[in-house]
């Protein structure tokens, strides 16, 4: 292993520019003659647009234009699409309503854009946007997804009767029913997964430049996947053909899924840049972000678990209503189906599973993938069920899980997924040891002596990453393949550029990917640069989400490196008149085994480019590309244990200890992995204790600023997270990686809620566990105890 190779805690190369404020984000980009866009947004959740009067706005200083949906549609700009086709159980395709980037007729959620103003300055654009007079005729709105399905509910789209997008199922209903008919015990729960706003530190932004001479567009934007953005903008929205559109995603300050999608605003900026005849920049403000960034989660489920007399799980039945908001965002349809119900088997051997998912339109902002995307919903449901079932049958929650663990691999679940490898006992043991499970009763008693309620909660999560085998997802309805591409360019001086289709927006690719090169060729990390986020530089790529950059993106790099290595060895063998098979690469040198003959990597690279003396028929140069398409998902898994203290007088929950024992397969940089887990745990704890995107009955978003939407802070977290990892290699990819980006956010919420409900001995708790809710339950519990 090179000093900076696989396994090294190498410092992040990108942090120098980030921590010195030298990062270059979309809003840092400026071009001559640039104008600014501001959007006119609906104050109503559901309303007909009667008229739009822009005359006053057009007379204001600096204003170039006010553009509306009529002009957008008139110019043939296409509707926004959902890229994953889901079929209902009756075989009918999902019912997708039309979504226009600027709505000309009916607004369906508060904050939906109906017009855009372009002006000399951002302030002028915002002032003018306030002067655009829009007359609305209000319609009844529906916010609750269950109410939206009821008879007589307000209807959002003519294409979707009863607001039903699809009524989908997975697994075997008859088999599941049979399991319940013969069950010794049945646990039933109603489980809500609360709605979240993504809140990346950098809000969305776009700078669109149209070159009239070349009839060519350039879009700087906050994207996790610039190539997908270009593909969709070209193929579906008719903004420009792909070869006339360059998409650049420079430094991006966090995404968590919310920057996968192509939103109306970015698209409108592109269109406006040609129509207005000047470059157009737009930067989202924080309240706009709350109103328009795709939200996450928002599931209402009823779940039943069947056990036999020996406490083996024999069946699971789940009915879920998923709120997709007012329109179907790019991957929204796949989140409550193939990213959710396929994980309902968890780490357990469950012979029969049936899940039914109804996806529903409501007058709220669209809901799509958010860190974990479906897997947190599955894990929260299953792990609360496991804890509850264990309590009901009077069995230790750890032992109940252990009893039902899957131990032989590969394991085919009843819900499509085939787990390739895992070792769930080891991570459970590690977590229980780390938190001193045996010592908990003593700690609980000590806390009680201080008037505090102490509780402990488990979560044994599994997720599916390495998204995804193209043919497999294609057969499930995906509109794209989910492979990744890479190109390795060895320069004549021996330095290396790696072009990747993955996109780094906080993950540290510039470091981990360089570590891989360092490992392979023994080169210094500083001799390697990672190029990403520009469709003119990188040939193609599917981007970064679903914890795929390691398992899929780096696998593509490995394939390219194999080709580079093979060619370098041929050249070295030729130059040193040795057999190709005897050439070994070590510490930046190519050596002939068993001799002192060697050439530096630089010498070989130079020889490849001077081409004065290459093997017969060999092309000059040392540059190779590769595409990697995974053969299966990867399955990171682990055990999280949370220990809390609740103050019954205030309802405040304090997380005393949190243990995470993860199996991510091969780890390249443990420091970066720990950072990913810390961030994930914090987001999961935020969902469990604090965060809740809330609409009132009329469809007004009343958590549209940090006054009302509570993000986790340092003092909401334990003094430190106790992390450990166990490595079972993933057989599916060359490095054996599984992915670590989402695990923390997927595994932590049920651990926290299981701990609180254990502490207060009341299970009727939904996230977020605010002090008020917990206090009410404590009171109720005391009343019951008194009677």
């Amino acid at each position, binding site marked *: 292993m090179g000093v900076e190779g696989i396994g090294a805690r190498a410092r992040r190369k990108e942090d120098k520019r980030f921590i010195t404020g030298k990062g270059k984000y979309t809003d840092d980009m400026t071009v001559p003659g640039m104008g600014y866009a501001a959007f006119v947004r609906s*104050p*109503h959740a559901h309303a007909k647009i009667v008229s739009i009067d822009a005359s006053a706005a057009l007379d204001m200083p600096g204003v170039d234009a006010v553009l509306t949906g009529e002009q957008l549609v008139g110019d043939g700009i296409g509707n926004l699409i959902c890229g994953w086709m889901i079929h209902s159980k009756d075989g009918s395709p999902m019912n997708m309503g039309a979504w226009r980037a600027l709505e000309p007729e009916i607004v369906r959620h*508060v904050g939906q854009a109906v017009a855009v103003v372009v002006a000399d300055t951002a302030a002028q654009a915002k002032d003018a*946007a*306030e*002067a655009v007079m829009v007359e609305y005729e209000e319609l009844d709105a529906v916010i609750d997804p269950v109410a939206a399905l009821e008879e007589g509910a307000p209807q959002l789209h003519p294409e979707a009767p009863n607001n039903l997008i699809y009524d989908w199922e997975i697994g075997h209903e008859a088999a599941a029913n049979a399991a319940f008919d013969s069950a010794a015990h049945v646990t039933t729960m109603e489980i809500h997964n609360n709605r979240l706003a993504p809140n990346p530190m950098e809000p969305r932004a776009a700078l669109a430049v149209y070159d009239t001479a070349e009839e060519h567009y350039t879009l700087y934007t906050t994207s996790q996947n610039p190539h997908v953005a270009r593909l969709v903008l070209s193929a579906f929205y008719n903004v420009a053909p792909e070869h006339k559109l360059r998409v650049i995603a420079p430094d991006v300050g966090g995404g968590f899924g919310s920057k996968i999608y192509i939103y109306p605003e970015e698209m409108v900026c592109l269109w406006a840049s040609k129509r207005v005849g000047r470059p157009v920049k737009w930067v989202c403000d924080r*309240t706009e972000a*709350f*109103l328009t960034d795709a939200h996450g989660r928002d599931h209402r489920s009823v779940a039943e678990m069947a056990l036999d007399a020996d406490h083996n799980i024999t069946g699971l039945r789940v009915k879920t209503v998923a709120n997709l908001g007012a329109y179907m965002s790019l991957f929204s349809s796949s989140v409550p189906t193939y990213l959710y119900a396929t994980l309902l088997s968890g780490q357990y051997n469950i012979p029969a599973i049936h899940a039914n998912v109804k996806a529903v339109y409501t007058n709220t902002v669209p809901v799509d993938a958010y860190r974990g995307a479906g897997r947190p919903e599955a894990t929260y449901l299953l792990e609360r069920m496991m804890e509850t079932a264990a309590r009901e049958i009077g069995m230790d929650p750890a032992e109940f899980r252990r009893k039902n663990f899957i131990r032989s691999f590969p394991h085919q679940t009843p819900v499509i997924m085939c787990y390739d490898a895992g070792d769930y006992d080891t991570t459970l043991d590690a977590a229980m040891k780390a938190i001193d499970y045996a010592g908990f009763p003593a700690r609980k008693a000590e806390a009680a002596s201080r008037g505090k309620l102490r509780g402990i909660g488990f979560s044994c999560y599994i997720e599916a990453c390495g998204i995804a085998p193209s043919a497999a997802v294609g057969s499930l309805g995906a509109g794209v393949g989910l492979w990744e591409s890479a190109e390795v360019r060895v320069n004549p001086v021996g330095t290396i550029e790696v072009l990747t289709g993955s996109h780094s927006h906080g993950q540290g690719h510039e470091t981990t990917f360089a570590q891989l090169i360092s490992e392979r060729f023994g080169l210094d990390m500083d001799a390697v640069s990672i190029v990403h986020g520009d469709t003119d530089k990188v040939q193609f790529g599917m981007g970064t989400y679903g914890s795929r950059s390691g398992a899929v993106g780096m696998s593509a790099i490995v394939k390219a490196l194999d080709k580079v290595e093979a060619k370098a060895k041929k050249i070295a063998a030729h130059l040193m008149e040795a057999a190709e098979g005897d050439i070994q690469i070590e510490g930046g040198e190519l050596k002939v085994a068993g001799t002192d003959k060697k050439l530096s990597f630089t010498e070989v690279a130079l020889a490849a480019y001077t081409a004065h003396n290459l093997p017969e028929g060999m092309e000059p140069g040392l540059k190779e590309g590769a595409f990697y398409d995974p053969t299966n998902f990867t399955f990171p898994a682990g055990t999280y244990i949370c220990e809390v203290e609740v103050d019954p*007088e*205030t*309802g*405040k929950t304090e997380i005393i200890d949190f243990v995470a024992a993860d199996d991510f397969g091969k780890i390249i940089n443990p420091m970066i992995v720990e950072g990913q887990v810390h961030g994930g745990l914090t987001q999961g704890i935020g969902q469990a204790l604090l965060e809740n995107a809330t609409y*009132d009955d*009329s469809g*007004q*978003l*009343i958590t*549209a*600023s940090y*006054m*009302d939407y509570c993000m986790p802070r340092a003092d909401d977290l334990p003094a430190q997270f106790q992390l450990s990892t166990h490595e079972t290699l993933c057989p599916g990819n060359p490095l054996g990686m599984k992915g670590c980006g989402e695990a923390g956010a997927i595994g932590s919420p049920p651990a926290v809620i299981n701990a609180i409900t254990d502490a207060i001995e009341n299970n009727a708790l939904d996230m977020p566990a*605010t*002090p*008020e809710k917990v*206090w009410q339950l404590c009171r109720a519990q005391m009343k019951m105890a008194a009677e």
Partner: protein
Amino acid sequence: MDMEGTYRIPAPREEVWKALNDPDILRECIPGCESLEMTSPTEMQAAVTSKIGPVKAKFKGTVTLQDLNPPESYTIVGEGKGGVAGFAKGSAGVHLTQEGDETVLTYTAKAQVGGKLAQLGSRLIDSTARKMADEFFGSFSEKVGASGAQQDTLDPGVASEAKRIATEHLPEDAVNALHDAEAAVEHAVEEVYHKAEDALHDVEEGYHKAEEKLEVAAGKGAYGGPMVWGLVALGALIIVLALMS
């Protein structure tokens, strides 16, 4: 938001009824009201500048009086637009009954706000409304009371003011409120003295509520007695009307 409440005004019912229909008095009493014209016996046009938390805007709109039954009751309906600040609309049934030389005003109101008002201000509406209600009825009682009831009776505003402060602010404010109440008591006839006693009692009660509020880290806690709720609610009505008018 749904609200209902009662308020005692030290003036005969006819006086109060007239005042409630007098654009000049309303204009002078509605905080931030810049103009208010009677466009017909049942319609008013108005412009009001209001601030809820971070949202400050000039609201223009109309208020219509329906189901007029002078001098006993009417329904007041309105809708106002604050441009980008959003919109407010609502209606209230107002009922007047004479008790001695006082008039008891009872109302039930519905109101809805939208846009930035809801996004940024929703959590602040109650407190802002309470403040505006106190301002409105402070001056309204003054104006109407001046012509009607005698000056030496204790302004009921003091009692409710004391409650409001005690329930809303920290102890030292409550102590001041206490002094106000006591000062008022000095001039008071016996019947008024009892009122002041209530005030003192409510101040104590207010203390506990305030302390509880500090202890319980639970979002919106409940405020004082029904009277205070009436004030809060009526305040909310007034601001909504202000926004609408």
